[in-house]
């Protein structure tokens, strides 16, 4: 199981800023290790953000996103205390879901 995500959701006026840091190797499948063997592809393929029980962002991701991806989004209509649920699934079927609250 991958390490927990770091999620920050902060209200600035009526706009909530959501930032997520995911802990993932994001191997493209093109890199070679020191011995010259190809490192198999292992990267997050999809991610979703739900705020207050509603889908806000539905994202698809490729191997060219950096290692330990950071994504930032903004939304209107969130209230302090709303639950933010972030999930991802990688190409090997591993998944992780973490929660935070809008502050």
């Amino acid at each position, binding site marked *: 199981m991958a390490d927990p995500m770091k999620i920050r959701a902060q209200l600035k006026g009526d706009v909530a800023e959501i930032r997520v840091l995911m802990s993932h190797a994001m191997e493209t499948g093109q890199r070679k290790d020191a011995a010259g063997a190809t490192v198999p592809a292992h990267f997050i393929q999809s991610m979703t953000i739900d705020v207050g029980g509603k889908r806000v962002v539905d*994202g698809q991701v490729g191997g060219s*996103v950096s290692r330990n991806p950071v994504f930032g989004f903004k939304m209107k209509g969130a209230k302090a205390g709303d639950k933010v649920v972030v999930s991802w699934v990688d190409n090997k079927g591993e998944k992780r879901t973490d929660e935070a609250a809008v502050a």
Partner: protein
Amino acid sequence: MNTTRRTVLKGATASGVLAGLIAAGALRPTQVLASEWNKAAFEAKDTAGALKGIGAAAPADSKDLVLKVPDIAENGAVVPVDVVSNIPKTTSIAILVEKNPSPLCAQFEFSNGALPEASARIKMGQTSMVKAVAKADGKFYTAQKEVKVTVGGCGG
């Protein structure tokens, strides 16, 4: 006339068409949790193929799509990209790097109050154009900027 042969031929054609439709993604299973990974678009080896994969074969240039990238990236493994769409009714934003082995980096769909803005950190193999593509009201718009890469981020 051999009617049996005719019937068999007809049947074969029909099932062939069906298999073709499934392969083309026209009969994709309905989405359950997140939308299904767009394999064709993400594995396309050139920008034209990737754009076609997300349904944006010929996006129009737009000044209202703001792409923020560094002019020079010292480390191609981590290039910050920030896209803001000022086009009304923007529902999705995609990020592409023209000269990467697979140009499409990510695509985000927005709903329920999400503003059409996204930031991410991407890998770049070499100096290349970075493209943002936004979908608004069924049409596609694009903006691009060159990023010079001193050390590539794909070869490790």
